[in-house]
């Protein structure tokens, strides 16, 4: 009798400890992982750099992503995948992929990406007309259509 009671007490203590340790894991930080496609003159294009500026928070974290060969991109905020919910002003640049860094530029950190093949039309937050809203249900964004001319 005595032994069983102490076992019950120890058992519940053990259970509590297990519960507490399992609860102290960290959450995802509320970022939504979204995927999108970027098209230049109608064709999916790789190497386009997209930046998502929070519309209502001028000091907020800028999320960024670069499209792959199929034109697909995902967004990163700091070191984490995903983007916070809210409205964003989107900028896009398409640096000429033919421009590659030299050894000296790598050593000195002075490499500049090639000229923007979109001619700077979407490159500035101040003048960009692309706006995207991210909701907690966002998964696949509507394709972002850009024009070279």
């Amino acid at each position, binding site marked *: 009798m005595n032994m069983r009671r102490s076992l019950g007490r120890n058992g519940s203590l053990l259970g509590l400890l297990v519960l507490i340790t399992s609860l102290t894991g960290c959450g995802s930080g509320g970022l939504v992982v979204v995927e999108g496609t970027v098209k230049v003159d109608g064709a999916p294009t790789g190497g386009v750099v997209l930046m998502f500026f929070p519309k209502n928070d001028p*000091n907020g974290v800028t999320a960024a992503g670069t499209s792959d060969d199929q034109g697909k991109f995902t967004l990163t905020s700091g070191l984490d995948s995903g983007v916070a919910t809210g409205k964003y002003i989107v900028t896009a640049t398409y640096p000429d992929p033919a421009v590659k860094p030299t050894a000296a530029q790598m050593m000195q950190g002075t490499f500049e990406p090639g000229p923007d093949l979109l001619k700077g039309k979407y490159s500035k937050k101040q003048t960009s007309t692309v706006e995207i809203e991210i909701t907690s249900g966002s998964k696949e964004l509507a394709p972002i259509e850009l024009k070279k001319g």
Partner: protein
Amino acid sequence: MKRVSRNHGFTLVELLVVIAIIGILVGLLLPAVQAAREAARRMSCGNNMKQAGLAIHNFESTYKYIHGSERDIPLAEQPTPSNPYGQTATFGTLFHLLPYIEQGTIYDMFDKKRSYVDPVNMPPAYGTINKTAQSPISAYICPSTPGDPPSDYGPYFQANGLPLGSIVLPRTDYIPLKGIHSSLASCAAMTTGSTKNGMLGVTNTVTGWKIKFAEVTDGLSNTICLAELAGKQNTYFRGKKTLGVGFTTVPTFAGFGLQLNSFYGDHNTARQIRGYSGANLNNIIEAGCSSINIINESGLYSFHPGGAQVVMGDGSVTFISQTTSSVVLASQITRNGGETTTTE
């Protein structure tokens, strides 16, 4: 009731429970011990940075300016014979702080009127300076950085057509800030492109290397002066050593068989801080908006969890979280941007 406690042993279940509890407690404690060790290393690292911050102010008290991160002495103005290999770039900020961190003996051994890659300032077999001049400066090394081989300039010299062989120079884990790179500027919605208006940035490297505190119009306490960019003797990408791995689409220093220059006197240690995507190991400098703890090329990089330490212009040492937005970081780097943000 008669107690028989003297003969009462533990049952198997009780023993198992005790062992389980001890196991959980040890499991909780061991990471904490490791974290405490890292916290101690970080503190020591920050203390080194504080010494450098104080040295900058003592230097300023003496000369009424601070020495910018880059300076060129034209060949014609160098003592004869001038550098046979033609380099004119001379020592950067950290070298000129040596007398103010009680390393004046080493400072006096170098010829400041010549390039740091002049044979007069280089160890044998390439140069003639006494080898003790290349002693490591512990105040410029962060204890959190894994104990890897020191910085070898041999391959870099070879790539520049200079004599072969290993040339080991003492490294630094701290860098002067030159400005922001265009990739970070666009993340911060700045239309300036790449700048050299960091606290120690120099536009004219021959005549403009003296920087007065009055030029830091954003305020000394709002401007980053030195930052951690650690472990440059290897390439680290998001905490993992990646030397020689997967550099296919874009050549990098590792792809060239080089290491990033990390001699504390080297003006190339000063960087324009970049924004990285941090997503592509095949193109480690792919543009994005992450600058802290992505890659130890031109970002802030430390081996502390969660961020990196910086010295502000007023000499204080601050920990900058890696979740800091590009807008805030960029405004803290520029010395005359006119922004009003703080890292708090």
